[in-house]
């Protein structure tokens, strides 16, 4: 009657094996077991998008998955974006455009934008707005975030 399971996951290219309780969400697993605290938890029930990560290349909410479900999966979190000291173009664009203030929602926006641009490298502004509609930000008013994503997509912004 054990509710503990051994899982193996690859996060940002590194493989981890851990024994986890079945009820632990993937977000808590990343933060508490792997100390990857870049993934933030806002609402913990699938509304705010702060915990968005990539699971086998697709953006998902890590609060709405169990860690055991990620057994064998490849994950990408915000910690996996930068190359050493060099920011990822999306991160650089967020800095350039002042697309964050408190920064709480930023990891979720970055991972959402990353997955979105992988699928649509040259989006329109409307498509960007649609793509980020599942992420909440209470500081910026979203305009700089839209600009940052367009900048990262190679579109000129002022």
């Amino acid at each position: 009657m054990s509710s503990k399971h051994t899982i193996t996951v690859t996060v940002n290219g590194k493989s981890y094996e851990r024994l986890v309780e079945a009820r632990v969400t993937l977000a808590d697993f990343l933060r508490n077991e792997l100390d990857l605290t870049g993934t933030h938890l806002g609402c913990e029930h699938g509304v705010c998008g702060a915990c968005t990560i990539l699971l086998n290349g697709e953006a998902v909410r890590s609060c709405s998955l169990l860690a055991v479900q990620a057994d064998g999966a490849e994950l990408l979190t915000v910690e996996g974006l930068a190359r050493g000291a060099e920011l990822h173009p999306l991160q650089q664009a967020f800095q350039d455009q002042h697309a964050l203030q408190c920064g709480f929602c930023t990891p979720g926006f970055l991972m959402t934008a990353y997955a979105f641009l992988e699928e649509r490298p040259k989006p329109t502004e409307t498509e960007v707005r649609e793509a980020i509609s599942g992420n909440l930000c209470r500081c910026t008013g979203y305009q700089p975030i839209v600009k940052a994503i367009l900048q990262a997509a190679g579109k000129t912004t002022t």
Partner: protein
Amino acid sequence: MKPAPFEYFAPQAIDEALKLLQKYGEEAKVLAGGQSLMPLLSLRLARPAVIIDINRLRDLAFIRSEPDGGLRIGALARQRAVERSGQVATQCPLIAAAMPLIGHFQIRNRGTIGGSLAHADPAAELPAVSLTLEAEFVVRSTRGERAIAAKDFFLGYMTTAIEPSELLTEIRIPATRPRVGWAIEEVARRRGDFAMVGVVTLVELNGNDTCQNSRIVVFGAGEKPERVARAERLLCGKRTDEHALAEVAKAVTEDLDPVSDVHASAEYRKEVGGVLTRRALQNAFKRAQKETA
């Protein structure tokens, strides 16, 4: 907010999942995409003793066209896969049009067709769409398989005809008939939110562009999606003129009996239900007129 402890099974084969359902019955919850169940677990609104995770049952993730033009979708097909499917777009454009209205793309990446239908949220799009299309639901247990018509599938608020020992495995959508037009319209507070009220319509025209058959389904305005029979009858024999559509819309407004809640008042839902019906019918007529017999 953390889920209460449960025992977890991730069967690799359908038969294995059915045996677990047979054994645990009402103690167990089936975990598919988890976009509704995981929040319920985290908020402890659901505290099942056993979770049966069906995500490893890859045989249930299919999308198949039938020779007669029908469509079969496995319960575990992700909403995003259905949204991207060329087969679905060609053979059942109404389903394709409904997909982007479900949550956000991160949610559709995980959310499944079967999960949304089995969860049966009254404000969800897929139950209303399946009722409009007169889809059939295939459920299996260790005792065998049965098919349930959409009209018999949704019983009430988040309640379906699936027995505790049964697993929803497949949704069958009949072939679209010639000269049929469809539309889905909804009003939500924000993009991706559940609809405060929504309408799905389907009209079938005869040779002189009059309606010979229609379905008008309202969702988000009651315990479950419902056809508005009087409005459907009123539309029969009508052409797409403003007067006829206004009369049908008025019947929808009159016949709805929604609840008031934090999202919208009953009065608002009745009014908007009528407005959306008129818009949906205009679009459905336009589409049907483009179809050749």
